[in-house]
């Protein structure tokens, strides 16, 4: 009798947990779509979005259709893609390092991607080739990945990866400063600085098509690492004894982070705090399980990024605030609150 009762209780417990997770994913997915719709609606010129869509579908070359296709749609899509990449990578890095303060750029990818874009700016290629900026960013991320691969191939542990990340970020930062230092005119320097602040303004669908496959591949690599991140909860020895190859896991996560965040930075510049804050907000809702945090953090990151990008346009502040500035202004106080809460728990 009691055996039956306990097995029923166990099933209900498990169902409710699995069901709650599915519901959370669904809610966040719907919220992402809602925020994308809101992003389409938010803009400087009044736009009848349904009418513009109708024009677009019917193939009518109206101004409204053009605004939707060339301005609003890329911005909404990139907001979702970049936010998803930052959220999921932040969750993965926190799981890998078993540290709640890890963020997507911790292994140096984002600093290197930013440097790649700056080099393109500095060389003047940005004005000559349409997608030179994001391509430069991707090249920078790829270079950093080669360095990290080399280290992991030589048996480096997770701590070495973090130190390498610090070194790559510092070096990339120094070279970025050097480019500013030597910039031929103040206008060029200003352009670089503004780009580094992070923004989704004035991107085209070409940016979407360039980064979507890379990001999608990166997301897949990160999501597939979920069970191994769960196994890592009890430390590296236990994870190994559960059949997870940690060297392979590190390579998989570096590749995933490079594809997702490297593309995100290449296309949008540096957008901070999303990848740090979102996993924190959502972790209690998935029972603190690192594997389950990945997907929900992706959607959470998309929601936060889209909301911030809509706020940037709706706030009556001109010139338009840079997205990275807004996420940092909102994110940093949150970090203080987090530190306060961690102290109280300890």
């Amino acid at each position, binding site marked *: 009798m009691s055996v039956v009762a*306990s097995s029923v209780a166990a099933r209900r417990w498990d169902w409710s947990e699995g069901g709650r997770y599915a519901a959370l994913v669904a809610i966040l997915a719907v919220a992402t779509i809602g925020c994308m719709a809101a992003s389409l609606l938010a803009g400087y010129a009044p736009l009848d979005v349904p009418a513009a869509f109708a024009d677009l579908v019917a193939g009518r070359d109206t101004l409204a259709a053009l605004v939707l296709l060339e301005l609003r749609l890329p911005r909404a899509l990139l907001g979702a893609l970049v936010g998803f990449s930052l959220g999921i990578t932040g969750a993965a890095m926190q799981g890998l390092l078993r540290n709640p303060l890890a963020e997507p750029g911790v292994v140096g990818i984002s600093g290197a991607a930013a440097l790649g874009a700056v080099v393109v700016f500095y060389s003047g290629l940005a004005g000559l080739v349409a997608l030179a900026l994001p391509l430069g960013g991707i090249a920078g991320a790829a270079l950093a990945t080669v360095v990290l691969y080399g280290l992991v191939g030589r048996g480096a542990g997770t701590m070495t990866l973090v130190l390498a990340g610090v070194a790559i970020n510092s070096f990339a930062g120094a070279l970025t400063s050097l480019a500013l230092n030597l910039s031929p005119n103040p206008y060029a320097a200003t352009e670089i600085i503004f780009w580094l602040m992070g923004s989704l303004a004035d991107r085209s669908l070409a940016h979407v098509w360039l980064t979507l496959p890379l990001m999608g591949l990166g997301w897949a690599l990160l999501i597939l690492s979920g069970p191994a991140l769960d*196994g890592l909860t009890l430390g590296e020895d236990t994870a190994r004894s559960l059949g997870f190859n940690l060297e392979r896991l590190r390579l998989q996560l570096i590749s995933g982070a490079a594809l997702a965040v490297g593309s995100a930075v290449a296309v949008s510049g540096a957008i901070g705090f999303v990848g740090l804050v979102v996993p924190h907000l959502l972790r209690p809702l998935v029972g*603190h399980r690192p594997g389950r945090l990945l997907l929900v953090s992706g959607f959470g990151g998309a929601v936060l990024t889209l909301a911030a990008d809509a706020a940037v346009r709706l706030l009556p502040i001109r010139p338009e605030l840079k997205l990275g500035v807004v996420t940092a202004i909102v994110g940093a106080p949150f970090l203080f609150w987090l530190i306060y809460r961690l102290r109280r728990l300890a």
Partner: protein
Amino acid sequence: MRIDARDIHVRFGDAQVLRGVALAVGPGEMVGLIGANGAGKSTLLRVLAGVQAPGEGAVLYDGRPSRAIGERELARRVAFLAQDGEALWPLSVAAVVALGRLPYRRPFAGLSAADRAAVGRAMGAAEVKPFRERVVGTLSGGERMRVLLARALAVEGDILLADEPIAALDPLHQLQVMALLRATARRGAGVVVVLHDLTLAARFCGRLVLLSGGRVLADGPAEAVLADANVAEAYGVTLARGERAGETYLLPWEPVAVGCHGHAHIREER
């Protein structure tokens, strides 16, 4: 499953931790791995678990190297309770124990009925069911250790390797965990447990392996392995012995004096 470590050498930097250790454990055996701090017990256990690759030598599982078996299959058959397996995230007890089923799970699939049954059995055996919904970080040290043991039991492997599972436990739970490990062995699993309590090692383990300086100093039944000369050499102490209901109990008594030829002599009274 039979686990067979042959001529294992492990070196960390300049430190030679294991120097040619051989150890074979068969089904149903309950082996106590004992020795002073730094003797190489934990390293040997990690090598047996396949977590640490030996510098030289090989570990064979039913005659096959780990590479021939595959990581996942090995993970299902060899359960390892690490010494520092501390949960960082505030997971529930049930979620931690369920981690032991990871080698059985398909990606994106939840716990199967078989997984849930195994988790239930492990939680029952380690007596952690009463606090299955609590967060691991809020438990006492002893409760936490039992949760981690339940996690290892949930693997339901042919071999259970436990690194100091009773170090943080009170006397009652020490006895209970040792009885649980012995019961696991009697059900057919090979159990290797690292211990510092020589009395419990002698009482519960049919076979003891005494490591000293990275070598096996003695291997066999407790009476033989815990002879005064072996204990003096491995630990540098003398033992006080007594008997209760036909079983021996042993207490570390005092350090031995080291003689002029480097041999340990048991110091006289006073």
